[in-house]
């Protein structure tokens, strides 16, 4: 049995009095212990919804309307408030996108770290403080002791994200869900933070779900990749296979759009059009208005995910 198994997950938002629109339309996902999975897709694909739904943290008026999130065989969506709180921040931690707004501006770093420990462990203030300082050192924060009494605004963006990572690691979780952990950071420190996350996950045997819209980043960090489009998984497989031999036209488009794949002096490729909002999804394959291989079948039926790809006319891929 996989450590984490997301089955047919739907997330819905009300539209008007009766109607609902779906941000997730049935997503499946499996993760083994210590495994690292990249979730990739354009803005609005539903990546963050997936992350929050796993911890049953979808904020009203949104709701998980269907599906299961099996973690070690128990459905997280069915747990009592108390029990799910014992999982959040303890066995499954999250890292958010923008460290400038993730930390509470009126509480010290120390308070925000120690409260996390105390929520999950019986531990004295002194021991908690010691452990927090140790973690701050692990994420390479200079003069860790004095940072405990600092407020978030006294730290740079990079340092704040390190603090968030330290908080995520405090309780020795089995899984970290990182939702675009470097997007909001300065380009010069993005790689640094990413390799820190990778290193810590490897050293502590922590599984990772890394959400990003940059295929280049996940290629270096994760073992498997899941491509999302308009609330569905459209392709899924080992990183190497997806990077070198994508089968879904969308994946192939994303790869072509990477700066490192553009020839010298060539203009950067862009997939034509943009992803439809969840309120105006086209019939059939949601990608068909942008797809060069679209045919009549694509316009009427939704392609099921089969053999790792959800497409009626998949590309050849690796000639296996």
């Amino acid at each position, binding site marked *: 049995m996989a450590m984490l198994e997301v089955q047919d997950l739907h997330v819905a938002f009300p539209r008007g009095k009766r109607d609902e629109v779906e941000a997730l339309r049935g997503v499946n996902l499996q993760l083994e212990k210590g495994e690292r999975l990249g979730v990739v897709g354009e803005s609005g694909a539903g990546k963050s919804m997936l992350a*929050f739904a796993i*911890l049953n*943290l979808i*904020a009203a008026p949104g709701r998980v309307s269907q599906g299961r999130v099996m973690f070690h065989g128990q459905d997280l969506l069915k747990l009592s*408030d108390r029990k799910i*709180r*014992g*999982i*959040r*921040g*303890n066995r499954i*931690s*999250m890292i*958010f996108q*923008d460290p400038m*707004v*993730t*930390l*509470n*501006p*009126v*509480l*010290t770093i120390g308070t925000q770290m120690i*409260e*996390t420990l105390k*929520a*999950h462990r019986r531990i004295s203030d002194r021991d908690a403080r010691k452990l927090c300082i140790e973690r701050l050192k692990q994420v390479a924060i200079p003069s860790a002791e004095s940072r405990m009494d600092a*407020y978030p*605004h*006294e730290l740079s963006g990079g340092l704040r994200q390190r603090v*968030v990572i330290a*908080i995520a690691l405090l309780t020795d979780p089995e899984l970290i869900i990182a939702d675009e952990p470097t997007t909001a950071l300065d380009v010069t420190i993005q790689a640094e933070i990413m390799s820190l996350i990778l290193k810590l996950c490897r050293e502590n045997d922590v599984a990772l779900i890394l959400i990003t819209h940059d295929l280049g980043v996940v290629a270096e960090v994760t073992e498997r990749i899941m491509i999302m489009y308009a609330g569905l998984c459209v392709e899924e497989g080992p990183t190497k296979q997806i990077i070198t031999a994508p089968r879904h036209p969308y994946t192939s488009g994303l790869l072509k759009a990477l700066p490192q794949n553009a020839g010298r002096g060539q203009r950067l490729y862009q997939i034509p059009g943009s992803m439809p909002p969840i309120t105006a999804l086209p019939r059939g394959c949601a990608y068909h208005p942008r797809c060069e291989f679209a045919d009549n079948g694509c316009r009427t039926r939704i392609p099921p995910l089969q053999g790792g790809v959800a497409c009626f006319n998949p590309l050849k891929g690796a000639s296996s």
Partner: protein
Amino acid sequence: MHILAFLIRRAAQAMVVMFVISIIGFSIQDNLGDPLRELVGQSVSEAEREALRDELGLNDPFLVQYARFLGNAVQGDLGTSYFFKRPAIEVILDKFPATFELVLGAVFIFVSVSIPAGIYCAIHRDSWLSRIIMTGSIVGISIPVFLTAIFMVWLFGVELGWLPAFGRGDTVTLPWGWDTGFLTWDGISHLILPSITLSSIMLPLFIRLIRAEMLEAMGTDYVRFARAKGLSTWRVRYVHAFRNTLLPVVTVGGLMIGTLIAYTILTETVFQWPGMGFLFLEAVNRVDTPLIIAYIIVVGLIFVVVNTIVDFIYTLINPMVKLPGAKG
């Protein structure tokens, strides 16, 4: 050290404000009827009046009069009340405890109602109770205070007879000469209606403010992160969300205490509350200029002190603002 620096800076600002208030207060003197009429009555001849004017210095140029006034004022001498024939400042300060306790009562009611109500309405946004509170607060905003006051006097004071609606009731004089109504049941029961009236001025607005701030805080990323850390609902709501509403609440609250002091005049008059506001209105009727000026200056001073305290609290709870000289 840094607190001292803060206080010195604030004291300098306060002096500027007080200076301006004193000029305003003093200029009123010129525009408020003829004090001699109150002082000596009709039978005195015009020549005698003129002599008296000279003697009182009422014929000196404005600046000379003002300089004299200011010189006396800094020594605590704001003139002698025409009516009471006692130093104006003494007459005012005698009434200070009554007004202070009224404001305290109003602030107490105000804080203990608006904070729970605001938080409740934010957390249970769609419950019927919060709808009633929110609708009620809109109605509350649009009803003038004197209507609330008169209605309460009529209902609780006259029709039902539950609570006294006039005066201060029994007071106890504390060793340092402070008359308090807090120590007798009669004093407290007299305080209830005026305090409710006074607090009702800003209560609806404040409930809405706290609700709005709380709603905003509940939707922030740091509150989401706090939940993702597995913290208890209580901690997420109060330590993370509510703590962040304090800054705007203290700021607006500080401003509102000013409004509240202004409304003591009206409240005290309706309830015949023997405080500074009631006294002030009487002084205006009697054209008791020294008393009017003394009131304006004392109230100005109260404003300045309240503002300084609010500023100070603001600095304490806002980690973004460091007191000058504090180590960062």
